[in-house]
């Protein structure tokens, strides 16, 4: 057990002992990334921790070590001690659906997935990630020296590729407005083909893929593969940030990867902590209703983190353009789908 998850555990235990038996309990099942993945499991768990701190609830989590654990882990939380069960990730979609349908009185919420048609006791939390990734693409196109950007994903599934779509379209808008020809390696939003490591846990792959993109001329790379991106960050650390910058995803990676904080140009935020907290509160006050919660730029469910150590390097005009584009996306005048 790592330090971070121990803090979570300690917090859970403290909260549990203070609020005694009647406490509202939120339980989370992680996917195979684990609770300390510096990415979406950890961010979702932060939502539970926020609720522990703000609302005095009790929180528990179960880590899945492999896909066959999903149903088993859900099963061991179904004894009625959890007021709401939060599952994380696209890959848990089927297992959550099965458990929710077998236990209609148990409240569920799944991060990064939605059901069509909706299930009455499940809230799907989804994110208009392409909006935030669009801003990142625009920013990167404005910052690149070589005129080449790179991206790669974990596996070719929509919650991953949506980042890459937005990134490419954002760079294209920059080209359109500035008459430049910045290209993005690693993803073609039309053919839906691109670079994928095939996993979310091999840090070495993150390094190798970033190296390949760098060798092809890319000087800013956005890895969309959870902790795999940490491998890319260490390559950027070695090459120096003049040669290679990284754009983080999911969480603000200057916070989750503080040792390499200086390599992150920015991070595309998926504020799962905010939507998870929202869902917990709705389950507490009785307004819980099956369906969808969508995080957007407008409700700050997605966004761009700060520029970290590049705060001064990003020109003021570019920052102003980003603000203008953010406003344009929110009011609908700018399309993030490249149409």
């Amino acid at each position: 057990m790592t330090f971070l998850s121990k803090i979570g555990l300690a917090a859970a235990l403290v909260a549990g002992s203070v609020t005694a038996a009647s406490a509202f309990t939120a339980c989370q099942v992680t996917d195979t990334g684990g609770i300390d993945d510096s990415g979406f499991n950890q961010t979702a768990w932060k939502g539970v921790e926020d609720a522990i701190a703000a609302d005095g609830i009790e929180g528990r989590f179960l880590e899945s070590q492999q896909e066959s654990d999903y149903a088993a882990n859900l099963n061991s939380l179904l004894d009625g001690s959890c007021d709401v069960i939060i599952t994380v990730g696209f890959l848990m979609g089927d297992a959550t659906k099965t458990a929710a349908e077998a236990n209609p009185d148990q409240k569920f919420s799944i991060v990064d997935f939605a059901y069509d048609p909706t299930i009455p006791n499940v809230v799907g939390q989804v994110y208009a990630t392409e909006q935030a990734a669009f801003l990142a693409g625009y920013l990167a196109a404005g910052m690149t020296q070589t005129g080449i950007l790179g991206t790669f994903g974990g596996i070719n599934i929509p919650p991953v590729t949506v980042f890459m779509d937005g990134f490419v379209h954002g760079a294209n808008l920059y080209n359109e407005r500035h008459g430049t020809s910045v290209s993005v390696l690693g993803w073609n939003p039309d053919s839906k083909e691109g670079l994928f490591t095939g996993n979310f846990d091999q840090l070495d792959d993150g390094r190798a893929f970033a190296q390949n993109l760098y060798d092809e001329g890319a000087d800013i790379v956005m890895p969309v593969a959870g902790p795999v991106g940490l491998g890319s960050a260490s390559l950027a650390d070695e090459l120096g940030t003049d040669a290679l910058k990284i754009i983080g995803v999911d969480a603000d990676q200057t916070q989750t990867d503080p040792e390499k904080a200086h390599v992150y140009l920015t991070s595309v935020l998926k504020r799962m902590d905010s939507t998870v907290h929202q869902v917990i509160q709705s389950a507490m006050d009785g307004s819980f209703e099956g369906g969808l919660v969508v995080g957007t730029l407008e409700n700050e469910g997605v966004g761009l983190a700060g520029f970290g150590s590049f705060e001064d390097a990003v020109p003021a005009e570019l920052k102003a353009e980003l603000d203008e584009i953010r406003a344009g996306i929110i009011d609908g005048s700018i399309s993030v789908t490249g149409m």
Partner: protein
Amino acid sequence: MSTSIGKRELDDAGRALLQRASGGRGQFEDLVIVPIFAVIAALVLGALVMLATGVDIGTIGKSFVALGKGSVGSLNAISETLTSAIPLILAGLGLGLGFRAGLFNIGAEGQIVMGGLAAAIFAFSFPGLPAILLIPLSLLAGAIAGAIYAGFAGVLKATTGAHEVITTIMLNLSSFLILIWALKQPYVQVAGRSDPISKSVPEAGQLPRLLDWIDPNLRVHAGLFVMLIMVAFIWWLLFRSKIGFAFRASGENPDAARYAGMKSGLIIVAAMGTAGALAGLGGASQVLGVLERASPGFSAGIGFDAIALALLGRSHPVGILLAGLLFGGLEAGGRQMQVDAGVSIDLIGIIQALIIVFIAAPLLVRAIFPWGFRKDKEGGAA
């Protein structure tokens, strides 16, 4: 390939381990008392590890209560224990049989992968068949795939002398890649998903759940009967049949078996094939009974845990059954430990590993618990 000296060393080391694993029938102490003490010692050491990682005594107590509660404390717990134990025991039976025949087969993981994949493909390819045909045929498909896959290693050993430890490890690695490749094929991959995942097993192909009339969350399935039948069958095969005698004879002393007129090559291939069929059956029962589809990593290390299981069960079908129930209980209870006490699931892995260490070192157990053993048996089989 390895030099002849390297191979001989490997053979000797393997034989020493196998001898320990098969043991003698009269050695009650090694078969029963050592495992019991090993479990106790592992739990105590596990508690010390928890202490060392900063878990307080109250939580440790709570976690062991949770371990008990999660493994046998409720109907759901027993159902989960059995569900986890089924594929472990099936694969463990195969490995135990191989050990008896002198084959140190590391390949159960790959055989599980191939068995599960074949069962899933067969089941969704014939959705029209009634359950009474589809379930047994899908299981059979899994067993055959496992047998063929293990057979490669058997044939290589029989014809070229390639050591089965090496070839089965290679075959494990290949199986993971074959699985991911197969799951991406349009015929196998479920429509509308771009990640590697197979179509679902049709309702008629799923091993029926035994207790879902009590509570739909009880997952124990009819694979339980398959497993029990196989335990009985392998016991009969090993100790009552002619081929079983040949397996054991060539395991105990391959030269003597050869001089007695047994065909060693044939025995190797047959033993590997049977072992692979059992592991394949384990994979098939996991896919048809629990997962309902094949996905990357569905084998989940069962084949490696099964090696420990076969060693712990001293390669005896009944021992493997008991060891499998123990491991299933540790897995189900481990989840409860995480839920109730917040102790990491990794700790269960540590306890399992400690059990293996103590089993593999009976002298150590005898040294720690001297009062548990007769004085004159000092040293025992180790």
